[in-house]
């Protein structure tokens, strides 16, 4: 197996671990971490394909994704804190004022 195959499998694995985590974990912070896993899996995929095709566009995309992920995490944590102030739990099953 060459390096490209290994990183591709690794990236796909991270993506699916993240998906599974989002679907089964009930803690908002853990869900947030799983979303980061998804994005990192995507980044690895971008970089591997960039290496396979021999152009830099994929690596540029990965840098953009990192920037966006940081902004997203900042906003997400702020929202979690705002919710936590009113509601001393971050279990997403307990947010049921609106029918889920």
């Amino acid at each position, binding site marked *: 197996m060459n390096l490209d195959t290994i990183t591709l499998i690794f990236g796909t694995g991270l*993506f699916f671990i*993240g998906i599974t985590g*989002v679907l089964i974990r009930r803690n*908002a912070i853990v*869900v*947030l971490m799983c*979303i980061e896993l*998804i*994005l990192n*899996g*995507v980044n690895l*995929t*971008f970089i*591997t*394909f960039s290496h*396979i*095709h021999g*152009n830099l*566009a*994929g690596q*540029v*995309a990965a840098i*953009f*994704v990192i920037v*966006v992920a940081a*902004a*997203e995490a900042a*906003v*997400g944590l*702020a*929202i*979690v804190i*705002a*919710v936590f*102030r*009113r*509601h001393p739990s971050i279990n*997403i099953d307990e*947010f049921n*004022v*609106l*029918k*889920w």
Partner: protein
Amino acid sequence: MNQTLPNFPLSILYPEMILTISACVLIFLARAFARAHKHTLSSIAFFSVIAAMGCAGSLWNFPRWENLIEFFLIDRYAIFFKLVLLVICALTILISKRFLSDTDTERGEYYGLILLATIGMMIMVSGADLITIYLGLETMAIASYILAAYFRSDERSSEAGLKYFLLGAFNSGIILYGMALLYGATGTFNLAEMHRIVSGLSGPAELRLLYFSLILLVAGFGFKIAAVPFHMWAPDVYEGAPTPVAAFLSAGSKTASLAVLIRVFTVAFGLFTELWQLWIAYISGLTMLFGNIAALRQTNVKRMLAYSSIAHVGYMLLGLASGIEMGSSAVLMYAFVYLFANIGLFASLILLTRNGVPKESTADFSGLSRRHPLIAFAVTIFLLSLTGIPPTAGFIGKFYLFMAAVKSGYIKLAVVGVLASVISLFYYMRIVMAMYMEKPADTDAAALQPSTSLGYAFSIMVFVILAVGIYPGPLLDLARESLSSIKILS
């Protein structure tokens, strides 16, 4: 690949630049003079949107719109959607003012974030490159997460914000993975180039990657436009978010995502048209039926509007399924027509809200015709337009959508669409019944007096709905012309 920036006139970026500057002013400088001059905040936002609209409109006859910057297209398709999005933004600003000043939450950030979200949408519809589209999408999404959670002290609003954020971020990961696979199959991010490369692909591995990315992108964009079965977030978010924000999201983010969906699928997946049209047709049928049936049993008007907006996405997808030529121009027209009636109904909810206490059930509309006949008339026009009854614009929009579906052979689907519209008649007319047949529970007419900006918004929306309904020709030509630019590209 071009290594230097092409020499382009800066004027093609004026709409985005004006809004960016104004958003920065609103967010960073507003604190300094906010207390004394609260009313200037909304004026700054509103007039910058009007200026951006003028700049975007002046690009319509731009001579070299074909291939100026390879990742940022200024074709007529983009300009059409930019104008639609700016109209949505302007109407949202007009209807927000009273709602915010009632609850004493009128701050610069609110208008700044609305403008930022609009900038993101405008970048999306101009995107000719997957990275540009993704960045626009995220600019829009991050600003709208904050907007949905804008009322920090309100439990419903922060819950809506959290749900929107978690599901939205999850979904953007899925879209991104779809884009990564598409890049893997073709080795480029540019949509037009992708179209060229896809037609030369034959290896089974590449084709498999393309199929997977198509599935992921359908799911991802399906989530963004709230099509069944990816719609679960929409009712919760629209119900919990502040009413003007719900109006903005249900009109704006859907229109922008639909524009991107049409561009990506017709250009990059041009060769798979039959395949994705079939999928879209199934999704459309499900969405129309489910949206309307679920709306039937809602008592909260805001939640009912959320389901009805799901149903309307189903009608638009019906047009998308029936082909680029006729169907998509009907979609463009319907997107334009739909926004006025939709924002109008949210505006009427804002009008009923008293001192921040929401009045959102059907019963709160009872006797409106006696309390304020003009408003009751306007709400009736909005509801007729959503149902699709002449002489309103909604009729014209639906007529062209169903005609396109019949002509392209989706007769069963068109029948489903008509049946779904009949179902929608029940829950829309329930509000009309309440307004005209029932006695008012609350006889205080003075409290219903709309503020100046809300009054303007109502008259603009009623005027456009009736004008398009009676004389639809120019709008139809506009929609056709904007679509012709996308065909040249592919």
